[in-house]
């Protein structure tokens, strides 16, 4: 059929004109333009989340008494060494860190959403 012949002709034409483009320093130019500080910021946020998660796993914060009790025994620690105040500060920091990460993901969507 004429349509299929046309389609084949067009495909052949485009494939014949398909060229690989050598890098020639292009990726280096992109690298130099990338924003700085993202890595350090993300390591910082992930560290906060990890510290908070480990601390709560051991000492609990709103966890059932039995679980924090078991965790304390496994870790060999009888009671939170730093007190309730630091516990609260770490809780707040961890919640902030998680919220910040979630907000960053949501706010970066704009026209790249739904992928």
């Amino acid at each position, binding site marked *: 059929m004429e349509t299929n012949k046309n389609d084949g002709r067009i495909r052949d*034409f485009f494939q014949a*004109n398909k060229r690989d483009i*050598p*890098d020639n320093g292009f*990726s280096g130019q992109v690298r130099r333009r*990338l924003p700085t500080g993202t890595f350090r910021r993300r390591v910082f946020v992930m560290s906060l989340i990890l510290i908070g998660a480990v601390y709560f796993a051991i000492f609990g914060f709103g966890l059932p008494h039995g679980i924090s009790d078991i965790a304390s025994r496994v870790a060999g620690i009888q009671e939170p060494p730093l007190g309730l105040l630091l516990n609260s500060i770490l809780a707040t920091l961890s919640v902030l860190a998680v919220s910040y990460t979630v907000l960053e993901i949501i706010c970066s969507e*704009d026209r*790249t959403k*739904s*992928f």
Partner: protein
Amino acid sequence: MLVTRVAVLGDKRAFDVLVLRYQSPLRRFFLNLTLGDAVLSDDLSQDTFIKAYTHIASFRGSARFSTWLLRIGYNVYYDHLRKEKEKEHVPLDHILWKSDGKNGANTDKNMDIYTALRELKEEERTAVLLYYMEDMKQEQIARVMDCPPGTVKTYLHRAKEKMGTFLKKDNYGNE
């Protein structure tokens, strides 16, 4: 895995690998879209990669990374067109034909494809390049162009008619 490293840790080395892997198809897409303007297509490609890096957290993995990247590229291209059209009395044709001839752009043997693509409207050009040159399916093209697959089909149909006429005039494929 690479995308995860970039998204979670901002790993620039992992992003380097992605740039090396996708720079050729992306730059080729822009080179053809801009009818051979190598300088402009490289600028647009760089802007696309920068945006991809800063918005990598929004990539969900439900489509291929290349599709997502081209989606960003498509938006970058149209932002550029809008800015150029806002500048008064700058004919689009004049802008599009700037080239220093590097990367095989605007040389005699490429003139045919740019001449052929010039016959098409922007949306038709985009659809036809993604379909025939980058071998994408219509559903993927629809995601890149953010339109229904039926609309992509319409663009391709119109483009095919124009391209068919052009190639017949040129006697292409009849040797």
